[in-house]
């Protein structure tokens, strides 16, 4: 039985395809339509939304709160994903390769569990951990971190963006660690042996063997975690709700608040969501292209 063209094949595909088209693709397009109306959850806009063209987009581009949420999201993504998760993930992956070190599996399991427990639970426990009388402040006091300028405080209130960023490193590092571990496994050992014979230092080996051979994995990792981190909602939402005020208001939280809090401007929120959709789409297409073309 070889692969053959058949209507049966298409019929078998149809149910799954129909569900995805109806509940994912159609709503996405509907969202674009909604973004050009004054739809809202209450009032006139609720019963009879009116077509208003690109007005929502024009208002968005004049909305300083929208720009603020963008900059919050960019800071959150750059520091928690691009720097935090990649650096820490790489350090962890290198650590896991050391055969002479004991207790690695405890660390790996802790990193893994932080990644898989339900997001709401993660946000809930960080809510206590980072509070004024939480364990974090006790650790800061015990380790005398005030000497480094880190003072105990109500982290969620006074340093909300810093706190959700660090919490997201805690949450997401496992993925990069696993990805880099796999990539390191694929580097043949003889390269290291040969370079040792040539008298290379461990830094040289890292710089001239590990890093270049890891580059494709790092690129894959960067694109994927950028997509994911840009759309993070739950854990920061549970921890700070975007506040105090709008100080930790990520793009996703901004959309949620525009739509589900007064004045319930759904059309406006849909415009912000559409921009998010387009941005993500560009990244995903980049990801697919990179995967298909290989690494050049």
């Amino acid at each position: 039985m070889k692969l053959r063209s058949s209507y049966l094949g298409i019929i078998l595909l149809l149910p799954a395809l129909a569900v995805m088209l109806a509940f994912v693709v159609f709503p996405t397009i509907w969202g674009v339509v909604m973004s050009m109306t004054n739809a809202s959850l209450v009032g006139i806009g609720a019963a009879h939304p009116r077509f208003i063209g690109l007005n929502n987009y024009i208002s968005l581009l004049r909305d300083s709160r929208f720009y603020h949420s963008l900059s919050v999201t960019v800071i959150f993504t750059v520091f928690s994903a691009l720097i935090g998760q990649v650096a820490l993930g790489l350090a962890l992956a290198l650590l896991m390769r050391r055969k002479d070190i004991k207790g690695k599996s405890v660390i790996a399991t802790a990193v893994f569990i932080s990644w898989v427990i339900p997001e709401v639970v993660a946000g809930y426990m960080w809510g206590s951990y980072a509070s004024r009388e939480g364990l974090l402040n006790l650790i800061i006091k015990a380790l005398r971190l005030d000497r480094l300028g880190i003072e105990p405080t109500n982290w969620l209130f006074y340093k909300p963006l810093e706190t959700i960023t660090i919490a997201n490193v805690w949450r997401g590092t496992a993925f990069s660690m696993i990805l880099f571990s796999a990539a390191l496994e694929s580097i043949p050992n003889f390269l290291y042996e040969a370079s040792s014979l040539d008298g290379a230092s461990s830094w040289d080996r890292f710089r001239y063997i590990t890093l270049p051979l890891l580059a494709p994995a790092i690129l894959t990792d960067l694109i994927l975690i950028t997509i994911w981190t840009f759309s993070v909602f739950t854990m920061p939402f549970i921890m700070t709700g975007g506040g105090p005020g709008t100080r930790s208001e990520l793009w996703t939280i901004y959309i949620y608040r525009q739509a589900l809090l007064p004045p319930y401007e759904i059309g406006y929120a849909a415009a912000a969501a559409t921009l998010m959709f387009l941005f993500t789409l560009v990244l995903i297409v980049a990801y697919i292209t990179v995967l298909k073309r290989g690494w050049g």
Partner: protein
Amino acid sequence: MRKVKDKPLIYLFMALLALFFLAPFTWLILSSVDPKADIRFRIPSSITLNHYAKVLTGRTFTWIVNSSIISLASATLATLLSVLASYSLTRYKFKGREALVDFFVILRLMPVMVVVLPIMIIFARIGILDTLFSVILLETALELPFSVMIGSSYFETIPTDFEEAAMIDGCNRFLAFLRVTLPLSLPGLVTIWLLAFVTAWGDFLVPLFLLRTPDKFPVSVGIYMVFGEHGTVNYGLLSALSIIYSIPVLVVFLLMRKYLTKGIAGLAIR
């Protein structure tokens, strides 16, 4: 290789890592057995299991039931639909098959926030907003791209020879699939089902947008709602609920850790 004396440094680094990754769990575990649990960190003066007993009564139990219904139903639906689709993708050749695979990748990576807002309006119009059914539908649709990807990679590992042999022996294609391919792919189906189950089980965003009645909430939205009730929060109960709620996810992921690691490795090495 030249020996570098970096062991003490590495162990110091590991101690900091252990602290960073384990410390946030401490309060969750302690407060769940502390009769006087509070948002503050404290060592319990006595230990109780009352919170755990209370989780299985009242509204917290209702939420566990709701989470179970949503996850069981959507995981089963997603598995059924994805088996058909993946079988088709691996056994038939048709125009646009390549494009379809790209399409699944796009859907799988698309932020849920983009979909959930318009679908709330659509579901309100057709009158199914604030029902478990609406949550089940959307969770299924969101799980499907990943389920199909797992299913396809599994069916690809099963040689078509067995099916052919069965068909020569007089089975039609459907029977050959049912008696030969399906039993062989059982581990793959279990994988799809379990991953879909934990995806729906842990989800917060979809039920947050689609449900309004507290009696219909799954555990995730329930925890959020109670956590927001400032002043009156029973943290002991909430922590015990969080732990019970995390157990199915932990069991599934720790069982499938090797499988997941292999899946992620596939992204790194091509």
